[in-house]
């Protein structure tokens, strides 16, 4: 009995310590002084984290827009409201689907790679050797990756939304025959730049922060064995996806929920 209580307390303390380490880790690595070399490191990571994720974001954005238009059309045409297709596609993409799906893809594509990379560096004691020669690994390894994640996810989200709206246009207008003018004008009437587009951007900024933070921290904090790396990579994808979905509900409730 006593053993169980002790185990519970140990577990709670472990979780609290992990949260504390993650918080300190974030603060220490985000507020690194920018330098010329740091900028080049950041550009390199932007390429790895952002540019290399463009292909998957383009393809999934296109298909999600096309599916939205197809599904939306079959529902809306029943009410004789197929003119509202543009509004439906644009609002669901800009407010919800683009930030969330882009963040989930980002966690799978870039997050897992970040964890595995940093984890292998730790397992092969590259991080320790860096400290030995007086290079701060937080500054050299972690900070450029964190910043690349913050910056690239909003950009990926914008690309996702644009491609999705274009895909919806492809299916709705070119294929199903919704009038082109009403597709765009209904969209322009209902989408608000600050209320919808910028709120979607705020969401993706938050997701970018959380996903990269989880990915990089899991890599930095793992048990340096091959099993530890595989576990940490799995944890990154699971935790990041859950955090994105949970935070999405909270952010949506705050932005659109009329709790004023």
């Amino acid at each position: 009995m006593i053993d169980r209580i002790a185990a519970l307390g140990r577990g709670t303390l472990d979780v609290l310590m992990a949260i504390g380490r993650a918080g300190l880790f974030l603060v220490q690595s985000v507020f690194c002084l920018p330098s010329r070399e740091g900028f080049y490191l950041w550009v390199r990571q932007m390429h790895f984290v952002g540019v290399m994720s463009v292909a998957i974001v383009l393809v999934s954005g296109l298909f999600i827009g096309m599916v939205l238009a197809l599904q939306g059309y079959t529902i809306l045409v029943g009410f004789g409201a197929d003119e509202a297709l543009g509004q439906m596609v644009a609002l669901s993409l800009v407010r919800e689907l683009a930030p969330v799906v882009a963040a989930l893809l980002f966690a799978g594509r870039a997050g897992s790679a970040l964890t595995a990379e940093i984890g292998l560096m730790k397992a092969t004691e590259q991080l320790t050797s860096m400290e030995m020669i007086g290079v701060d690994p937080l500054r050299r390894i972690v900070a450029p990756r964190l910043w690349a994640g913050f910056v690239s996810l909003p950009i990926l989200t914008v690309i996702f939304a644009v491609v999705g709206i274009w895909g919806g246009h492809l299916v709705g207008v070119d294929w199903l025959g919704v009038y082109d003018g009403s597709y765009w004008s209904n969209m322009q009437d209902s989408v608000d730049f600050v209320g919808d587009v910028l709120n979607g951007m705020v969401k993706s900024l938050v997701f970018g922060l959380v996903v990269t933070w989880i990915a990089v921290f899991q890599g930095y904090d793992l048990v340096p064995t091959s099993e530890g790396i595989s576990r940490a990579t799995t944890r990154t994808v699971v935790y990041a996806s859950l955090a994105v979905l949970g935070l999405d509900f909270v952010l949506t409730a705050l932005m659109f929920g009329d709790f004023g």
Partner: protein
Amino acid sequence: MKRNSVLELGVGLFMLAGILGLVFLGLRVSGLGVGVPQNTFTLTANFANIGGLRPQAKVTMSGVRIGKVTDIELDPKWFDAKVTMQIDSQFDGKLSDDTTAAILTAGLLGEQYVGLTVGGSPKMLHDGDVIHDTQQALVLEQLIQQFVSNMAK
């Protein structure tokens, strides 16, 4: 760290794509105007009930879009809704002063917009004028209420 110009070019294109995408979302998707607003003139109309009309809703004549609703507020004098509209300036002085404004619904469940219908008066509406003849939005509950009370008789 060695610089790599191909890599920098890729990242630059990536960030440019993001900015262009945001511009597209602003201009094409949410219909923001750039710089100088288009030539418009302002009309106001008081409605007893605006239903679900919102700012940015379109103003049409014979179904053709000629302007948009810019502002909706409660008129403290009459306690009805004062709707401010911006109409394309090519119609300035072309609409007769007995033009009627009605709040219509696109389709059964679509969004609400303002429909204008010209009258036959020789006097014309100019910037800042008020449309007096208005028709309030159709509120489904009121219709049902009327229907039920007629049935009861």
